[in-house]
């Protein structure tokens, strides 16, 4: 008997089709991964199966669970007990004011119906098994992204559900956390069914089982993980796989001798926010045109270092000495979330002309730069909320290039972008450094990306 069987399951917003009719079956012990870029209707599939689509959408087709086709209300009765969903941002999904331990115990007591003492022991078992004791008595906002995700998984499974739908389980996590989370998913859903939805090829490879590749709500390719990922048939799948940094071409690294012209250097530098010091004893020099990578776990002080170098916050101790005689607006920063770094009030070209007028730059070089960055004139008529993350990041780059910067601190510029755009934007950064002799410090939690793009790496330990 199939645990999950959907026939022509489709999702519509009014009469616009967001997800093409899709039929799939999953038996006990099987694993399926839906792979595709963000915003391709993947999570709608999970919500359609689960039955918690938002009011404005409706779905067609039939959903069979545990061998019997279930209406919406019947599926709701299965929530937690047979069928469970792991939502995208786990740190928003856990109740903000309750400790992790209580949220877990609550599920055992109320969903599993265990007595108080039995629920407590089962909770302790889970906490030990998944090494969650450290964050057990903390609130969600005090947990790291990885820890919050793992707590969410245990809570979701505590109800004894056999079918686990995991929506983007590794989004925003560091590489080391990612493998840990995928391992836990596979362990907990061992004797049931695991349907994973992700944009990360490595997660698909690690989960194994079958893979479905989707783009804009359309199923492109399907098959066993090993076959599809090693010999992709569909061109989109091939582009998706080759976007993985591990597959990028490795350019020759430029070496800058010690005595060559120093742009900015740190002497016994300690950086921190407020009264809490994060990293100490930093000594390095950055030369014009050099691309330096900065790697470290999230929260280890990467962006704090950037702000200190740019003079936005004072160093705790030690010295940052910059080359004299360079005006302030030549030291620039590229942000992780482009939508938060640009004003949404006016169209992009207005922002551009503001900048040109402020420093009365020569606007003649703008068209060439725009072509180089793949930005069309019509795109600039729109405001920041009407363009994609990738386009907006390229617009930020355009503004920075206009200022002819000597130093650019790029703080995880591609973590929010999908793989294909990540490759283009990171390549643009390297070209900027080489052509304009501008020093670039590139921050990322993906060591492979840093490996393929930077001349040398600064490792920040937690």
């Amino acid at each position, binding site marked *: 008997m199939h645990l999950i069987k959907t026939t022509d399951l489709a999702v519509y917003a009014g009469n616009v089709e967001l997800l093409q009719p899709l039929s799939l079956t999953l038996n006990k012990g099987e694993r399926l991964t839906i792979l595709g870029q963000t915003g391709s209707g993947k999570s709608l599939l999970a919500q359609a199966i689960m039955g918690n689509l938002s009011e404005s959408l409706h779905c067609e087709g039939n959903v069979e669970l545990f061998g019997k086709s279930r209406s919406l209300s019947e599926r709701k009765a299965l929530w937690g007990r047979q069928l469970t*969903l792991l939502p995208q941002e786990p740190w928003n999904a856990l109740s903000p004011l309750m400790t992790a331990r209580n949220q877990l115990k609550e599920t055992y007591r109320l*969903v599993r119906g265990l007595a108080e003492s039995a629920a407590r022991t089962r909770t302790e078992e889970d906490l030990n098994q998944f090494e969650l004791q450290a964050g057990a008595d903390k609130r969600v906002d005090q947990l790291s992204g990885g820890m919050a995700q793992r707590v969410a998984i245990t809570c*979701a499974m505590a109800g004894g559900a056999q079918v686990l739908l995991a929506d983007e389980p590794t989004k925003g996590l560091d590489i080391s956390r990612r493998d840990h989370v995928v391992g836990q998913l596979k362990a907990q859903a061992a004797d049931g069914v695991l349907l994973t939805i992700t944009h990360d090829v490595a997660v698909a490879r690690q989960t194994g089982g079958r893979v479905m590749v989707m783009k804009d709500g359309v199923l492109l390719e399907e098959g066993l993980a090993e076959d599809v990922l090693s010999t992709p048939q569909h061109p989109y799948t091939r582009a998706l796989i080759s976007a993985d940094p591990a597959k990028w071409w490795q350019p020759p690294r430029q070496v800058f001798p010690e005595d060559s012209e120093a742009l900015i250097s740190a002497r016994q530098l300690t950086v921190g926010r407020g009264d809490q010091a994060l990293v100490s004893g930093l000594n390095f020099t950055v030369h014009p045109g050099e691309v330096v990578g900065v790697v470290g776990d999230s929260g280890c002080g990467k962006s704090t270092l950037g702000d200190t170098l740019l003079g936005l916050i004072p160093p705790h101790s030690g010295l940052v000495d910059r080359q004299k005689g360079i005006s302030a607006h030549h030291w620039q920063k590229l942000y992780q979330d482009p939508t938060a770094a640009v004003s949404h009030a006016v169209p992009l070209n207005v922002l551009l002309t503001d900048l040109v007028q402020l420093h009365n730059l020569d606007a003649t070089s703008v068209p060439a730069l725009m072509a180089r960055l793949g930005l069309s004139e019509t795109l600039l008529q729109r405001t920041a909320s009407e363009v994609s993350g990738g386009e907006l990041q390229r617009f930020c780059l355009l503004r920075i290039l206009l200022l002819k910067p000597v130093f650019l601190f790029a703080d995880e510029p591609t973590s929010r972008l999908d793989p294909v755009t990540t490759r283009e934007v990171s390549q643009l950064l390297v070209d900027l450094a080489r052509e304009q002799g501008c020093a670039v410090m590139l921050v990322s939690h993906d060591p492979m990306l840093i490996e393929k793009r930077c001349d040398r790496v600064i490792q920040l330990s937690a």
Partner: protein
Amino acid sequence: MTQLLFKRLLQLLGVAWGVSTLTFLLMRSLPGDMAYRIAAGRYGMDAVDTTSADLVRAELGLDQGPFRAYLQWFSDLLTGNLGNSLVSGMPVVDELWHMLSHSFYLAMAGVVLSMLIAVPLGVATAWWGGWFDRLMLTLSTLMRALPVFVTGLLVIILFALELQWFPVAGFGSVSHLVLPAIALGLSLAAVSNRVVHNEARKVMQSPFFEFARTKGLSNWQVLYRHGVRNLAVPVVAFMGIQLIMLVEGVVMIESLFSWPGVGHGLAHAIFARDIPVIQGAALMMGILFVLLNTAVDIACYCLDPRGGRLQ
């Protein structure tokens, strides 16, 4: 926490001093001869004449410059004596005690009533929505469109005249407190029930509410275990803001229901230029305001420690 308390204590002293001095300056800048006004307050509006005004001026030493009067008042304040009312000669502390206790009962009754109306209504409208929500929205907007004394009159006409359940005005027994509390409670609830509605809707549409549901908890369990606490934070914070609106209503309702509260008393003290009473009342209200605000801030912090350290 202690750092907060110390800071708020300083603020308390500052506000108490500031408010009473502000009222002193304002009252002293009012036109008309104070002695006459106090005489009118003492002997009644028909019997006030120059001889009684001169006697009052002599008795109370009103000829002394405002600065010396202020110093005199300030030195008394340091010894904890708020002076005597110019009109009745009674110690200000006693008059204020009588007025403040009554205003306190009315305010508390009003707030409790408004919460009893606003919270269930807000949550229900957020939960069901649809026509019920629209009906409550129009009702509360209409209620907010009326000045408080009109609400008071409607409440009297309905409960006291038609139904004869409660006395129209006066004080002394609990039954006297009911109608003013209903009038005040309704005017407050008209605003707070929409705030509760919005906050409840935000909680019900939040991801943690959805995850608790998909985790297997029933609607009621989620609302009870997660919804209430997360809802309490913004609602308690709003109660801090509503304090200011509360006092407006209290002044109106007290004069309509002849409730001997501080709002009503202050209005008379202003007309009769009874400066010590006004200063004393302003002092007490300033202190009460800071204390209540601190209490609300602490309550918010305990409910939701995420707000970082208390400033």
